[in-house]
């Protein structure tokens, strides 16, 4: 066991600094666990910085407002120490996330207690606008069987396909952190450039590298009218 590395870690703990990472052996892990257990019992040490709760609370309030508001929000100037990079929530991701779930949209998703369970496949959910209108997104003739076409309207982006059992429209926003998905036409998959998640055009999760399962892509209500493919979107 390397004494130096564990000492450095323990020293950081005792100074309330972030301990430096390293590849720990089992023995080292035991020492660190003991150190943490002792540290956890110190009342004075465990309280967070005074502004922590209030800062996080306003950040969450902002997040929630973004999720409910349609698109194009000026990004916050990362002054918060809980800035984007730490949690992988880039500004691009936040803007896109807003585009994916706009005002008036009610996603029929429940709590994902699947975080505890094995990675079972989850039923895809629908994005149902409770006040919405049908918007044409593409001409029917431009969506041939076997093709996948991307559409982008205010406020939604996604991918259309035409399997044998009917037209399908899935969200084009990664359910992990909200990045725009890219079509990989060769494999018929939708890929996320941020963390290598991949989805089928049905919305089913094909691949991800997150510790917890990520949700399948929500689907939009879609129909064909007058030679146009239309999607039910919020708003008038």
């Amino acid at each position, binding site marked *: 066991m390397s004494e130096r590395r564990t000492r450095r870690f323990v020293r*950081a703990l005792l100074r309330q600094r*972030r301990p430096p990472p390293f590849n720990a052996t089992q023995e080292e892990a035991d020492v660190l666990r003991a150190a943490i257990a002792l540290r956890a019992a110190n009342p*004075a040490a465990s309280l967070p910085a005074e502004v922590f709760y209030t800062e996080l609370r306003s950040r969450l309030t902002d997040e929630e407002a973004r999720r409910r508001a349609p698109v194009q929000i000026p990004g916050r100037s990362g002054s918060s120490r809980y800035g984007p990079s730490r949690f992988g929530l880039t500004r691009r991701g936040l803007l896109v996330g807003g585009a994916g779930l706009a005002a008036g949209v009610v996603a029929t998703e429940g709590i994902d207690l699947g975080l505890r369970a094995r990675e079972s496949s989850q039923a895809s959910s629908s994005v149902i606008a409770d006040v919405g209108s049908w918007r044409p997104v593409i001409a029917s003739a431009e969506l041939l069987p076997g093709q996948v076409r991307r559409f982008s309207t205010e406020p939604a982006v996604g991918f259309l396909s035409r399997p044998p059992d009917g037209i399908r429209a899935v969200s084009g926003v990664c359910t992990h952190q909200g990045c725009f998905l890219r079509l990989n036409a060769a494999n018929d998959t939708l890929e996320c450039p941020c963390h290598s998640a991949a989805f089928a055009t049905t919305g089913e999760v094909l691949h991800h590298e997150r510790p917890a399962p990520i949700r399948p892509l929500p689907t939009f209500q879609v129909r064909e009218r007058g030679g146009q493919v239309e999607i039910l979107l919020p708003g008038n």
Partner: protein
Amino acid sequence: MSKQRCLTAGREGRVRVPGTRRQASPALRLEAPPAEPARLRVVPDDRYLDWDAVYVDNAQRLYGLLFSRVGNRPDAEDLTAEVFLAALGPLRLSAHKQEVRAYLVAAARTVLAAHWRRTLGRAITTIELDEDLHGMTDRQVDLAADGISQARAEQLLRSLPERYRAVLELRFLQGCSVRETAAALGVTVANAKVLQHRALRMAAQVEGAAPR
């Protein structure tokens, strides 16, 4: 445990008057439902009104839970924020409070596991599946350290020889500097460091079988 002057010296950056209980600083006083008598209470079968209510009710508990698993403030703060930010999306407010809390604990479990994977390559501590947030009384939320952590630390220390126990108590629980610890024990600073490390290693063997 014996009170040392280390805490009163404001070692952790906070002034502490001996004999008074630690008060939550104003910034930590979140709006909460009217205070209830300090006893275990059954969580009422109801729901949270909005996301802010979820936060107000659970932020301190969650932070405390994560601190007890990572042992330092910056990581505990980051991981707490990460849990809430991750939970924001999938969370359905029409769920019962217990469900929401269970969900937050499950999310914390995942966030913690990912943290260890990223930093040390193995799970140093974990959150068990039956870890329970809503069993904690209100008073426990106000207290900086929960009773479980303290009991566990005492148990660890009890099994050590006198000098090892003393150095760990001074350094970890009392927040004394190496210099102060050395003075209290009547050894050199260098000796105190060696003592601390050996004490920790012995504590690690005691701790060994049951990772938390």
